[in-house]
């Protein structure tokens, strides 16, 4: 498949990297360590997008307070993403609805997609990393 998408002979190869976030921000380290990969990928000048599905939508919810569990609240980092030119954030509509959330509950501007649209977007990617 990738053989057909030969990059121009000159200049670096830009690939489409998608990070799929499926887990709640706390309880496991996956969300935090996913964010660390995202920030590094941004420094490689790749085409980066983030997807939030299932409990992953909780990563973007406003007003997270973690003092009680003694773990750092890293959610402000999502607001810093546009400073790294990462502006493509997609949220799964059903996942939001199932949890009684709307876009207004989220920390950052996102595009809400249904499952079909999400599938189409995923099909366009070169690299998908799921956390």
């Amino acid at each position, binding site marked *: 498949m990738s053989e057909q998408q030969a990059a121009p002979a000159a200049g670096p*190869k830009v690939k489409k990297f998608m990070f799929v976030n499926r887990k709640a921000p706390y309880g496991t380290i996956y969300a935090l*360590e996913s964010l660390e990969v995202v920030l*590094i990928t941004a420094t*490689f000048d*790749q085409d980066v997008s983030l997807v939030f599905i299932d409990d992953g939508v909780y990563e973007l919810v406003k007003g997270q307070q973690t003092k009680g569990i003694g773990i750092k609240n890293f959610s402000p980092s999502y607001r810093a993403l546009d400073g790294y030119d990462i502006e493509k954030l997609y949220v799964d509509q059903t996942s939001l609805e199932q949890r009684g959330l709307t876009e207004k509950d989220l920390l950052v501007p996102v595009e809400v997609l249904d499952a079909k649209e999400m599938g189409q977007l995923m099909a366009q990617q*070169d*690299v998908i990393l*799921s956390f």
Partner: protein
Amino acid sequence: MKIGLLVSEGPYTHQASDSAYQFVVAALAKGHEIQRIFFYHDGVNNATRLTEPPQDDRHVVNRWSALAAEHKVDLVVCVAAALRRGIKEEVLAPGFRISGLGQLVDSGIKTDRLVTFGD
């Protein structure tokens, strides 16, 4: 085909590391190139030479080391994830090296497929 791997779980608790190993053996046998295996999250625990499973069990860590020795496979452990979990240079099994997350991104850029083995 040029293939990169991401291993996101530690040995024994999860089968991810076993599956990754078996995938690599099969891919090499078919003549594919394994560009790199990147260990992240608890996957960094695949790299400690302090691992001592019972005699009658497979030795996940030594198996990776043998693979690196035989096929020159690049086994890279994420530095940030490793330090968090007490994995340092002095406990690394042969064939592993510690480096940054950039090595994972590099794998995504340079390979035809980046295959994740996780939970």
